[in-house]
Every structure is written in structure tokens, then in C-alpha cells.
């Protein structure tokens, strides 16, 4: 029995293929102009990696912002449920999943069985999402993946007071004009980012164990700041945190064809 999950987000598309308890492939690509195309391309990549064809997939569940437009998916499930399910499968003790994606941020509470209990989402404001970091990386003139490591070398992180990404960008530009050290800038940015995520998390409450999923989980600076602010140590995932939604999709697909009990 081979199942797949396909997660088409705002910036990236991910696919996970599973057989039994084994992940055969997990792939990530940048999105194409149309969600169908993103889904096809990322699935093709994952299939190639697993030495399979689309016909070998018994069931596929799609998720993410483009989930209703995936022709080869037999069902679609919200990314909130999928992230919860994926994280819970890897770490059964997880109770809080903080998913920070390209254009939104969700804090998801699950029970001991991995079932969704409560969640909160920000998809209206770029602050506290991956987009904030993108805007800031561009302003600093560094790659997105450089911000985290740079921030770890800061001596005096700057304080960014604006909530709004646009106003925060102006603050950073002013700091650059004052020739502030870029490590201190990077640390100010990751802290500001963590601050927004924290305020969202506080609104649903944080119970351990906590995991961070989504692309921003790869930013060590944001993760460290957030851990400090929430006074928790997040559990590290053994698979790429960005494919958690797709993994959850594959797990749901598995249940669809072999229901529990």
C-alpha cells in the first residue's frame, strides 16, 4: 500500500510518499504560477525519487492553500489538521504545533491522539510570517537562509518596535544608514519575528511538547528566540519541518484506505 500527501502552499509545494511506516520520498519545490502545475511537478519529483509512477499511489490527500485544485488527489484536508497529524506521528508527546509558513502562521493544539483541539491563525498580516523575513532579507541584502546564522553572532541585537512589516523595514533601513552591525540587525529581525509568533501562541496557550513546522522552523535564530520567549525547548523533528503538512496528508491517506480498528 503506497500513499501520498501533497501540500501546495503560497511559496512552496511539497510531496511525501509513504509505504507502511516508511517515508519513501519527501520533496519541496518553489511554486509554479498554477497550483495544479506545482502539485504535478513536486509529485513527479517525489515519484522519481521513490522509483514509482503516479499509478502506484493508492491514495493521495492534498492540503495547503491550493489543495482543492489538485487533480490526482482523491481527497483534501486542511493544512491545520495535516500539520497536527504529521507532527504527532513523529513525536506522539506533541501538544502544540507552531507552523510558520510563507504567508501565514498557525498555532495548533492537539490532544494525546493527535486530534485537533484548537488553533489560531494569522493570514491577514505579513508580520509573523515567512514574508516578514523575506522582506527583511531583501532589505539587508542577504539570502533568506543567512538571517538565522547571522543572528547567532550578534552582540547587541537592535530593538525593532514596529509591528508592521513596512514600518519595521523603515526602521531597519535607518539602522543600516547608521551602519549598525548586520549581525545585530539580523538578531533584531529574528526577535521581532519571534515576538509576533509568541503573541499569537499565547492566545491559544502553549502546552509541551512543542514543535515548530513550516519553512521558518529552519531559521535557527527565530527558533532560539521563540524558545526563549515561550520558555520551552522545542522538540526537533527527524524529517524536514517544511514537509509536515504533506506528511500529515499521506498519513490521512493511509487511514482512508485502511481505517483504524
Amino acid at each position, binding site marked *: 500500500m503506497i500513499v501520498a500527501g501533497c501540500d501546495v502552499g503560497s511559496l512552496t509545494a511539497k510531496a511525501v510518499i509513504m509505504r507502511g511506516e516508511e517515508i519513501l520520498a519527501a520533496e519541496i519545490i518553489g511554486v509554479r504560477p498554477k497550483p495544479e502545475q506545482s502539485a504535478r511537478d513536486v509529485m513527479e519529483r517525489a515519484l522519481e525519487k521513490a522509483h514509482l509512477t503516479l499509478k502506484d499511489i493508492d491514495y493521495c490527500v492534498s492540503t495547503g492553500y491550493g489543495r482543492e485544485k489538485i487533480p490526482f488527489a482523491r481527497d483534501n484536508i486542511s493544512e491545520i489538521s495535516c500539520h497536527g497529524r504529521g507532527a504527532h506521528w513523529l513525536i506522539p508527546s506533541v501538544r502544540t504545533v507552531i507552523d510558520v509558513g510563507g*504567508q501565514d502562521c498557525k498555532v495548533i493544539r492537539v490532544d494525546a491522539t493527535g486530534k485537533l483541539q484548537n488553533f489560531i491563525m494569522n493570514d*491577514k*498580516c*505579513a508580520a509573523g510570517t515567512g*514574508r*516578514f523575513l523575506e*522582506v527583511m532579507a531583501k532589505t539587508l541584502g542577504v539570502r533568506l537562509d543567512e538571517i538565522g546564522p547571522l543572528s547567532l553572532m550578534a552582540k547587541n541585537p537592535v530593538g525593532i518596535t*514596529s*509591528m*508592521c*512589516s*513596512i*514600518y519595521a523595514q*523603515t526602521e531597519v533601513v*535607518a539602522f543600516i*544608514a547608521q551602519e549598525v552591525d548586520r549581525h545585530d540587525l539580523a538578531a533584531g529581525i529574528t526577535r521581532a519575528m519571534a515576538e509576533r509568533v509568541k503573541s499569537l501562541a499565547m492566545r491559544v496557550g502553549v502546552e509541551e511538547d512543542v514543535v515548530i513546522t513550516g519553512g521558518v522552523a529552519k531559521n535557527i535564530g527565530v527558533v532560539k528566540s521563540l524558545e526563549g520567549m515561550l520558555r520551552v525547548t522545542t522538540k526537533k523533528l527527524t524529517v524536514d519541518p517544511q514537509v509536515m503538512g504533506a506528511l500529515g496528508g499521506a498519513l490521512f491517506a493511509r487511514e482512508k484506505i485502511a481505517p483504524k480498528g
Partner: protein
Amino acid sequence: MGSLTTKVVIMKDGAVIAHHIVETGFKPDLAAESALEGALSQAGLSRGEVGYCVSTGDGGKNVSFAGKYVSQLPCLSKGSYFFVPTVRTVVDVGGNATRAISVGKEGRVLGYRLNDKCAAGGGRFFDVLAEALEVKLDDLGPLSQQSKSPLEIASQCTVFAESEVISLLNDGKDVVDIIAGVNRSIASRIASLVRNVGIKEDVVMTGGVARNIGVVKSLEEWLGVGIKMVPADPRIVGAIGASLLAGKELGEG
């Protein structure tokens, strides 16, 4: 002194005799100096001939030549009252903040609502969007008037609206319809702030965004009332209010 522009107004005997606007930039003290120099040379005056100066605005406390600092709210309402004595509500949409002010007798401030936390709803939104659309800021108003079917802009956030507008352009949508949609969407944000403070006529609009005819017209639609414009550059109304207050310090008015 605003976040984006710094304005100096010189008044004599109850009339504006000169004004000058410069960009604030990152050196506010220099901006204040150059705005003052510009206004003085226009008026043909020297610094010593200015009786008193009141500063206002975000950077108003950095103005070394001012005798006193007063917050924007009384300056904006006094300035609006100077031109429109029947004013009861001032809507000021500046670079980094939007204010709705309820005005009482003789231009007194009765209450206000402020948005300075989010760029959507303020002038910065238009800077970002004009750049994305590759249109001059000053053309946003006139171009929007050519639109027959304004598009709906779903995003509230400036960053997300920028992406939305770029994808609308890529989809081949008409740029004038996009601009009209952008103006309408911001006008609706401004309108909710005004509703919060209470809509009382006459409504006067000030600040740089008042120069965007598309926003003014949309705001009139959302509020269901006409908006009075001042017979001067709407960006200098705060500075006019400040100079009226300076006159008071000297026992005038």
C-alpha cells in the same frame, strides 16, 4: 515635521505668506533647517524676523529653532478650522499615520482615533503600491478616475496587497482598474477609523493622501458625506495650525 515630509509655514497678520516642503529623510535636523531656509527665502525674510515658531509632528521635538512643541492633533484641528470654521471632523492621512479627529468649538480637539501601527490605511501604502504598479504617486488619483470597473483588492496588509497587485498585473488586468481598487480599499480602512470617532459634518481631509482624488471620492462614498478640502496644499495644514498657535504665544489671534 512628518515621517516622510517636513513642512515650514510662515504666517503674517493671519495670512500664510510662505511655505516650503522637503523630504524628512534620516537627518531630521537637516530637513527642518532646509525647510525653514526655503520658506524664509520665499518670504524674503531672515530668521530673526520670525517672532515665534511652534513645531509639531513625529519629528517635531527635533526642531532646534522652535520655541515650543505641540502635538499634531491640536495643530491639525486649528489649521482646518482656520480654513473651514464649520469643521467638526478632520481626517488626516499622512505618511505613517492616519488620524480621525472630532473637532469642537474654535477648532478644539474633542476626541480622536489613530492608526500608526499598520501601513495599510496610511500614505506609505500608496508609496509601496505606486512603485509596484510603476506609476507616479501623484498619478494614482487621476488614473483611478478613468476606471469603469474597479477591482476588489482582498488583502489588507500592504505586503500582501503588493503581491496581489503584481499578480493582477500579470493576469493582464487593466492598471486603472487596479489603481481604483487600491484607492477604494484604503478609503474603506480610513472610513472605519472615521466611523469610530463619529462622522460629523463638515468633514475636512488633510495630509498628503488628500491630494489623491480617487481616495477622497471613495471616502465620500464610504462615509456618505461630502468632504471639504482646504484652499491650500493639504500637507501643510498641521504646520499652519502650529503657526497659528505660535501667533497665540505672541498674543495674536
